[in-house]
């Protein structure tokens, strides 16, 4: 198990280096720092002001090789954008935002709280409700509940996330006034009041696909031989579902969670900017509108890190859940 873990972490690190290379190509070689400077400082400043700004933000160095230093001098390769990009990203020193010079890591810390308070419950409630509903539907397979549930899932899957948010905000926020339309508060009991509506919208929009997927997994497991054995032992239908089927179904469910993690990211991004939650999602949206490349680069990097960590976590939980893998 330990060897498996080390190999997995090693491969994860390799992927991180690959992602950084992709980001470097995307954000440094293809875009022109002059434009970023102009956007950050504003159109009315003097040309030397842009040069000054680029210098402050370290955009003025060459890309790969710094010919200013002699061939033997180590700095020929370290005083370049590429090396600087890797060093700072790997040491989590994200520097300042291109748009307004505020320290990115401080804004990340400020944004981390609201983002997690949205994404974690979204993930947990989404998964728990998804599995419960799927169990419920699988339990009543071949009755009209099953057929009705499948049709409803198909319909909810075909509606764009944006429409859920717009109609949700309008119906529940404005007409019914159950929860505040948007906004956030760091005091916990107030935060719950703010997060209720985005969570509701987020869960409902993702529910269709999840329930259909989990139901198929459950029905597949129910038809396996060991379920017949359990019934022959005298297990009641509920015990069969919870003790036997659910435990075995966890394995395919875990593999599918890896696929849903990135959608969690996009979901949070939309929910945060629509509901005014000052999290990493709205920070990214602002970076897009403000052409703030350094923040965007950091967000993509963190997104990738989260995803790789998620993959490793899922593989580990996969091994824990399935003895056949754990003991191999």
């Amino acid at each position, binding site marked *: 198990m330990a060897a498996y873990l080390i190999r997995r972490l090693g491969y994860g690190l390799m992927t991180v280096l690959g992602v950084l290379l992709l980001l470097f190509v995307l954000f440094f070689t293809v875009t022109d720092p002059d434009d970023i400077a102009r956007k950050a400082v504003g159109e009315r400043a003097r040309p030397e002001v842009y040069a000054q700004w680029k210098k402050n933000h370290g955009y003025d160095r060459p890309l790969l090789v710094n010919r200013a230093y002699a061939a033997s001098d180590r700095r020929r390769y370290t005083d370049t954008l590429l090396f600087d990009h890797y060093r700072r990203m790997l040491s989590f020193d994200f520097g300042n935002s291109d748009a307004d010079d505020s320290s990115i890591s401080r804004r990340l810390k400020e944004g981390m709280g609201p983002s997690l308070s949205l994404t974690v419950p979204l993930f947990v409630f989404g998964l728990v409700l998804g599995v419960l509903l799927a169990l419920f539907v699988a339990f009543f397979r071949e009755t009209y509940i099953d057929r009705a549930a499948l049709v409803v899932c198909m319909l909810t899957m075909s509606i764009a996330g944006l429409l859920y948010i717009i109609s949700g905000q309008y119906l529940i926020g404005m007409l019914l006034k159950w929860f505040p339309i948007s906004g956030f508060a760091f005091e916990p009991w107030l935060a719950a009041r703010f997060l209720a509506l985005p969570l509701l919208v987020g869960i409902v929009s993702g529910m269709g696909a999840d329930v259909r997927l989990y139901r198929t997994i459950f029905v597949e497991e129910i038809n396996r031989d060991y379920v017949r054995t359990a019934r*022959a032992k*005298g297990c*009641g239908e509920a015990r069969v579902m919870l003790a036997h089927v659910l435990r*075995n179904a966890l394995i395919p469910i875990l593999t599918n969670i890896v696929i849903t993690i990135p959608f969690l990211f996009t979901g949070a991004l939309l929910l945060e900017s629509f509901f005014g939650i000052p999290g990493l999602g709205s920070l990214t949206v602002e970076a897009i509108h403000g052409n703030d490349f350094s923040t965007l680069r950091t967000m993509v990097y963190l997104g990738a890190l989260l995803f790789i960590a998620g993959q490793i976590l899922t593989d580990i939980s996969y091994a824990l859940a399935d003895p056949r893998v754990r003991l191999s």
Partner: protein
Amino acid sequence: MSAPLLSLQNLVLSFPAESGRTAVVDKVSLEIARGETLALVGESGCGKSLTALAIMRLLPKPGRIEPPSRIEFDGRNLIELPVPEMRAIRGGAIGMIFQEPMTSLNPVTAVGRQVLEAVLLHQPLPRSAAHERVIELLQMVGIPDPRQRFYAYPHQLSGGLKQRVMIAMAMAMRPRLLIADEPTTALDATIRAQILELLRQLSATTGTAVLLITHDFGVVNEIADRVAVMYAGMIVEEGSRRELLGQPRHPYAQGLIKSVPRPAARGGKLEEIKGVVPRPGRWPPGCRFAPRCPYAFDRCETELPQRTAVSPTQGVWCHLVEYEVHA
């Protein structure tokens, strides 16, 4: 002969087909005495496995037990039994083992704990006592060093060992009837003999009646007390092992026994029964074996034969035999 332990009367099982529902098992009547081992023999698709599942009321979803079927066990009709009581019988008074030991155990739980569940479901013992009971059961079915094997996972055991665990699970509550649905078909020869010997020995020591479902006459010859031959959803002949293997009267039973390859018959032509078993819903009107029966005559095509007793313990559903007996 005291009252039979289990008696099936006119059991009819139906499944949905293109046009409404068709019977797959058609008015089967069968009895098993206490401690007796009855072998239910027939080609695959004749409905013998479904009959076994119907006894446990575990018929797969679209299937249904149609009236006027009756399944009397210990004097009670299992069909009318309320669900909680039926659940008490499953794994309690009646145990069952299946054909595919490889997939019949829960892959993510230790085998010991799966047997433990079978015990605790019916008898609220303290954990340590139940644990000991499981060790005892594993020993009883011949699993070496049961204390360690308790924590093994199914993928770590061989096919034979897994079938022994299944048997331990089924015998957990000293059932009065054990249903074995082709227990050895998936095992190779050497293990097959051990499992059959285990079943015979358990039946002898615990007095458990065994309903053995198989298509292999070798198995029947090993441990069966009585035999019933099934064809296209009907029982065509039943009798003691000696009678049926010795002098089968129903043409299909005769054909079956002749087609079993025996060392003695080396060099001879292997017998085979021409034609194919008709599928449910397309059964011919009269005797269902008529199209393939060399002795079929006009009555066979029109009328379903009734049971004719050729000895106190042997009955045949065949017009020819009926004719011979009454003539």
